[in-house]
Each structure stands twice: as structure tokens, then as C-alpha cells.
């Protein structure tokens, strides 16, 4: 029964990615990255629960735990940065920062 879970996880991941690419609001973009995390968490747990061979293990869940930790850190730092950016330019538009543009 691996496939349905993994498929759902993949769709979640791709939707998150599409959101990240198409939305301009920094906060929404961040939400989208969290959404991609959700897809991956589902995948990890599913792979642990339905391994290709052998008995189920809990390693997938353990990895998911770490992923949550990373997500938490990322959220903390990312939101701090968002606030910083917002204070600098009074906008949440991701297009307002294009310092990497090669003129």
C-alpha cells in the first residue's frame, strides 16, 4: 500500500512547489515550503511503514521527527527574515528583492 501514500505525498510536494513558484507573498511562499515538508513527511512515514522488502521499521518516523525539527528552525529563521525584509521595504512582495539580478 505504499503507492497511494507516496502519490499523495508527491502531489502535496508538487502543489507546494507550484505555490512557491507562483505566489508572490513571502509568507505564502513560506507556507508552501512547509507544505512541501508535509508531502515529504508523508512519504517518509509511508516508506518506513511499507518497505519494499523486509519488515516495517520506525526509521521513517524518526526521520520525520528530525524533519519537523528542521522545519521548526526554518520557520523561526525564515519568519525572522521575512519580518526583517518587510521592515526594510514595507512590502511582502518577493519581487522587491532582486539583488542577484545580473545587469
Amino acid at each position, binding site marked *: 500500500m505504499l503507492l497511494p501514500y507516496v502519490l499523495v505525498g508527491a502531489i502535496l510536494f508538487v502543489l507546494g512547489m507550484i505555490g512557491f513558484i507562483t505566489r508572490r507573498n513571502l509568507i505564502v511562499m513560506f507556507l508552501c515550503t512547509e507544505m512541501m515538508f508535509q508531502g515529504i513527511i508523508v512519504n517518509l512515514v509511508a516508506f518506513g511503514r511499507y518497505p519494499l522488502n523486509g519488515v516495517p521499521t520506525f526509521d521513517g518516523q524518526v526521520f520525520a521527527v528530525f524533519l519537523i525539527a528542521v522545519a521548526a528552525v526554518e520557520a523561526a529563521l525564515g519568519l525572522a527574515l521575512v519580518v526583517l525584509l518587510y521592515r526594510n521595504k514595507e512590502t511582502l512582495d518577493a519581487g522587491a*528583492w532582486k539583488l542577484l539580478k545580473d545587469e
Partner: protein
Amino acid sequence: MLAAAETSLLDINVYATMPFWPLLGALLVGLLIAFRAKAQYAHWPVVLGVAATAVLAVTLFFDLGQKLPAPEGDSAPAVAHGDGHEVDVHHGETDAHAHADHDYPGFTHTLYNWMSFGAEESLDEHSNRWIPINFYFDGLTGMMLLFVTVVSLMVVIYAIGYMRDHHGHPEPGYERFFAFLGLFVFSMVMLVLAGNFVLLYLGWELVGLCSYLLIGFYFRKPSAAAAAKKAFIVNRIGDFGFALGIFALYMFMRGHVSAGENPLDYEVVFKYAGSLAEPSGYFGLSQASLVGLLLMCGALGKSAQFPLYTWLPDAMEGPTPVSALIHAATMVTAGIYMVARCTPIYELSPLALNVILTLGVVGAALTATMAVAQHDMKRILAYSTISQLAYMFVALGLAVPDSGVFHVFTHAWFKALLFLGAGSVMHAMGGVIDVRYFSGLRHVLPKTYILMLIGCLALAGVPLLSGFWSKDEIVHAAFDHSVLVGVIMLATAGLTAYYTFRMFFLCFHGKLRLPDEAGENPHESPPVMIMPLWVLALGAIFVGYLGVTFAVGSGEAFIGVFKPHGYFHDYLHASTIGHPHHGHGGMWLMYVSGVVALAGIGLAWMRFGQAPQDEPDRKILGPVWDLWNAKYYVDEIYDAVIVRPLRGIGHFLFGVDRFGVDGLVWFVSAVPRGLAFLLHFMQRGALQGYALTMALGIALLLLLWRWIDVVPPDVAG
């Protein structure tokens, strides 16, 4: 073996230390400089070192004279071929090779192996070929060492007095001067003693270096610095050919030598020299011609032959003892020595001999005319040196190298005497050496006057002085060869007498005139300077008699007493020179040549006896004299034809380097640059753009992964 011989005065290993005493002296002086010792006595290490070498050289001269097998030939008792091997220290095998066509009576003493050639393909692994540090002893070596070291010693002693100011304080750089002199004597003895061509090249370059350093002794004078550079570079032009000659020699030789023989050792080369008669495959020359012509290039530079002589007059910027020692007596004769040493090679190549002869004749005549129209005493002597060197070259070209070396030998004494005498004059005149600024010096410098007179007479070839005997031999050989060459030689001899005494009269005769630099009371040089001159003067008078036989009463003798060819020649024949063929030109030529010399002197007396202020010759010769005075504009021509174009090429290439080559690299880099220009529009700085690219990249990677299909088959089931 010399070392084992009962009568030999010293062990061979002692003789092998010969070059290193002056070097040791020079190093000691170097240490003195480094520790800032007082300069006052800095000459002692070098003087002692050179003296040690000179003593060794004299001993060696007599030892060799006794021990070397008497030469074979019509006049001497024939000696078996194998004798050469008995004195062979280097390798004792006595089985003569079938194709070894000559055994020369020299022997080699090896100190250690210097450079390796690696094992040759044709040899087994264990017999490496080497370039050793080895010394070759034969008659030529002994003869050369004799005058080189003795003249050096005289000059070094002279320099103790010369390199000081009027108060007896050493000049600045006094120690440096002696260090260089010591280095020079080391190099020159190395050059003469060298037992293989690479070591010869070592000595060759080292004497060039010393010449460079000593010409540039007064380096703050731009002219001295330029002259030093010129000397070194012009010599290097010759050395370029010389090095190529060595390479070519090795290339031709390595096929002939057998295992264990080092193909550049004199002993080996001359043993197989006969094989060089084969065609070389280049320019249709024989191997001997090719090697001979290339080696000759070195001699052209070092011995200041036409067309590479231009450095020698400029070299007079150096201190006068240097001019005497290096640029008259010893170093410049290295080229003559080398060609004479290589007689077995040149014997095989008439072409090379003819080239040498032609260059010699042209050079002798050309530079003699230049000497007529100079004002600087040292320059006159320099041109005369070139002319005399060309004389020696003519002798080599005429295949009578023993006569050439004889002239080298005599010339060393009287030319050193002349230069040192000129130095004495210069010392008294406060550094002025231009004959236009002084005259009548015989009143203030009586001893120098006598000494200079002896030197001038010898140079002019006045009978019974040493220069006469050696020069006459060459004129003889020239007449044997062709009348044209003989006449040119004879005319040059007359010209030599003329310009020598022009200088002499302008300097010492006429009314006493002194330049301002001379000070109130010019005085004769101190004894430390005059004594060596007396020694040299004795040499200038008497060394010629080594080369003649007393044949009192014989009809075939000059003034009924002297016959050409003597001890000197026999001594010399016990060397690689062998037995050159001398014609019998007849005694009349000796009288003619004596008369020509006296006529030249007489003409000079008529025109310059009262030391006239104006140039009488100039009025007669006009533009020709100006041309001579300007040395035929050879320097200017070289500058315009060679130096400037080459430097122009340098500028051009540097431009090419900066714009062309670099531009090419820029052009190559333009491709990625252009690609980057096209792609840089993708770099829009928007965060999502990068994310999009990343997503596409992941998709592409997945596709690629699927395409490569790395899913392990055993898991896929």
C-alpha cells in the same frame, strides 16, 4: 706514467692542484671583503696563489720536456705508437683499436666525473659516459702554461703598484680587483689544462666572465659598463657556435668510441679524429669541416678575430693590468690555443683552414690600418693585438699551428710589456692616455722609455728580438702558400712597425708636454711596477731564441747564425699539433722582413720623430684616414644591422605577447563569455525563478535516472 717517473720533479697530483691556488687566493680575498678587512694587504693571497701556480708551471714545463716521448718525424728519432699509452693515466688498456689512427703523446689525469650522459643505448648499463673534470698534459699544455702563469704573475705584481693612488693608498675596489685576477688565472689555467671539450668550454666561459668583470671594473663609467657587456655578448656569439661545435663533435664521435670512453675527452676525440673525414650530412660539409667551422666561431669571439673583434678595443676601458693580461697576453690567445689543440680535426678540413686563413688575412690588414689612425695609446695597442692575433690565425690557417703558437708565446711577453708600460705612462699622467695630450716623456720616465722601446722593437719585428722570429715564420709560411698572402702579411708587418713607432715617438719624443691631470711632478713608477716590466722585457728579447737553432757557419742561416725552428717547436710537436709541414722559403725572406720592419720604423721616425701636434698622415690620406679613425664604422654597422633589428623584433614580440597572444586567449574565452551573455538574462534575481529552474532540474534528473535505469534488477522483482 709521469707520477711514477724517476726524474719527474713533482707528483702528478701536485700538478693537478695547479689551477686551484689562485682560486683559493681569490676566495680568501673574498672572505677578506666579506669581513671588511683592510685592503692594504689584500693582494697577498692572490699573489702567492699565482706564484705557486707559476712555480708549478715552470716545473711542469721541464718535466714534460723530459718525459714526453720525443716526436716522430724526419728530424727526430721515430717513436713507436704505443708510447702514448704508457703515460696514459686515465685508462690503461693498451690494445690499440683498429680504427684508432693516431696516438698523441699526451696523457690525461682525471679528478672526478662531473656530468653524466646516462647509459647510452649501445652500451651496457654499467658503463655510463661522463664528462669528467680531467686535465690533459702534453707539449702544448706545458708551453701555454709557462707563459700564461709567468706573465700572470708579473701582471699581478705590477698591479700591486698600479692599483694605488699617488700616496700609495689602494684604490676603491682594490681587493675586488685581486679577487677577480685570481679567478682569472684559475680560469685560464683550467682552460689550458682542460682534458675535454666541456671543461675547455668551462674555462672559456670563465675567462670570459673575468674579462666581463674586469672590463667593468670601473662600472660607474657608463662606457666601462657598456664595454663589459659588449665583450661578454660578442664572445657569447662566438660561444654559440663553439657550443654547437661541441654538440656536433659529440654527435659524430659517439658512434665511434667504445665502451668506457668519454666521447668528449681530448684523448678519445683525437684518437678517433680520423673518422671525422666522413660527410656530415649537413650543407655537404665533411664532419671535420662542420665541427671545425663551428669551433672556429668560438675562436673568432675569444681571440677577437674579424668579424667579432669589435669588443677588444672597447675592452680597454678596464684597468691597464687587465688589458695587459687578459686582453693581450693570455685570454685572447685562447682561441688560437683551441684551434691549435684541435689540429687533428682541422687537418682534415681544407675548407675550415681556408676560412681561417681568409679571416686572418682580412683581420690582420684591416685592424693594422685602424691602428694607424688612433690616438688612444691603449687602443692602438689593442688594434695591434687584434692584428697580431690575426697573424696567429693566419698561421693556423696555413696549417702551421706550431708557428702560430710560437707567435702566441712571444707576443704574450712583449705585448704585456707594452701594455704595462702604457699603464706606467698612464699612472704617471694621472689617467690620461691619449697621445695628443703629452709628448717627450722620455725625460720624466726614463725607465719606462727603455722598456717601451724594447717592447716596440719586438712588436715591430726588428731582427734578433723575439717578435721577429715568430712573425717571420708566419710570413714564410704565407709565402709558401701564395705570394698574395705573403705580400699582405709583409705589408702588415711594415704597417705594424709604423704605427707602433708612431705611438712611441708621439709619446716619448719631441718636446716635453704634460696634461693637467699629471700634476706638477710626474714621476717614474715604483719598483713594484718596474721590476715585473724588466722580467717581461727580458722575455721580449730572449724567448724568441727558444724557437731558433744556432747553426753557426751553416749556409742556410740568418746572418750566418740562426736557423728557424728550435727547441720550442720540438717541444710543441709532442702534442696534438703533431708535425706540421714547413716549407723552405729561403733565407732571403728573413732579410726582407727585417728590412720592412726597419723601414716602417724609419718612416715613423721621419713623420713623427718630433712628435708633431697635427696629424701629418691625415693631410695626406684625407678621408681614408678618417675612415680608419672611425674604424670603418663597423660598430655602427653592427648596431644598425644586427642589434637594432633584433631589439625591434623583441619589441614586436612583446607587443604580440600583450595583444596578440593574450588577445587569442581572450578570443578563446569569448565563447563561454558569449554563452554567458546569452544566459545571463535568466539570472533575474527573482527567488521563484531559481526555484523554477530547480524544479525543472529535478525533473530532468529524474528523467535521466529513468533513462539510465540504475534500479538494481534484483530489487525490482
